[in-house]
């Protein structure tokens, strides 16, 4: 594939992610910081975000699997994930976390623990779904970027 075609594919992918709301303008602001002095900034940030997110999702799965769920710990982890998704501009993940936290809070207030537990489980599944959807597109984005960078460095030789 030509360099131009690769660039078009990458731009198309990123634009569609903005249009679908997977990414918001925080991501756009961060993209603008990437330059010749730090060509790997976005890739590094995405890698950090994904590693962090997967660690948190594993912890949340374990916590909701306990006989007695510690909702304070659950809330703390969701708060962390909400924070990092907000910082990178992962809008859908962030919104799913906001919803999840609401269920955690409601659980603390209400007496019907069973219902809220299932709502929290469902909320976790929504967060996972949104995260893995985003992760798939991030993977494609990084692969395209690598191919483009390889092309560009060959051209410079």
């Amino acid at each position, binding site marked *: 594939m030509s360099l131009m075609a690769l660039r078009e594919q990458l731009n198309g992918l990123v634009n569609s992610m903005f249009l679908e709301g997977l990414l918001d303008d*925080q991501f756009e*602001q*961060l993209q*603008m*910081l990437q330059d010749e002095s*730090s060509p790997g*900034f976005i890739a*590094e*940030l995405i890698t*950090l*975000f994904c*590693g*962090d997110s997967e660690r948190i999702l594993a912890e949340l799965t374990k916590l909701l699997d306990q006989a007695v769920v510690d909702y304070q710990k659950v809330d703390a982890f969701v*708060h*962390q994930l*909400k*924070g*990092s998704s*907000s*910082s*990178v*501009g992962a809008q859908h993940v962030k919104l799913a976390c906001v919803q999840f936290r609401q269920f955690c809070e409601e659980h603390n207030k209400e007496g019907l623990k069973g219902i809220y537990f299932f709502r929290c489980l469902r909320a976790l599944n929504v967060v996972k779904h949104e995260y893995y959807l985003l992760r798939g597109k991030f993977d494609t984005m990084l692969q395209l970027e690598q191919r483009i960078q390889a092309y560009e460095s060959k051209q410079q030789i």
Partner: protein
Amino acid sequence: MSSPRGGDKEGGRDGERQIHVLAVDDSSVDRAVIAKLLRSSKYRVTAVDSAKKALELLGTEPNVNMIITDYSMPEMTGYELLKRVKESPTLREIPVVIMSSENDPDKINRCLEEGAEDFLLKPVRPSDVSRLCGRMRS
């Protein structure tokens, strides 16, 4: 914009003292973002993941022109770090900026009353960092 003494050399090498910002955040993602934002403004950045490490660093290297810290951190919060800095005769002149994802007026007021230079709402963006540039310790 306050700049290192003398010329405006990029990176401030060759004897020019570059502005040094200490960033404190337990989130690796947020640390990477704030460090990048600051480095894009040509500041030298040291990023640590806890207030404890921040205080250790300040003990050995007091030549820090600004501290930017997250509020909510395990063990020692950014608020507690702010208080320790302002209580210290050697550190109290260093401006401290607090970052938080929560827009809580009580929290903000508490920080400002304790001597915080500014309070930034996360997610932090380039415009937030530009507004800090005149307030570094010279």
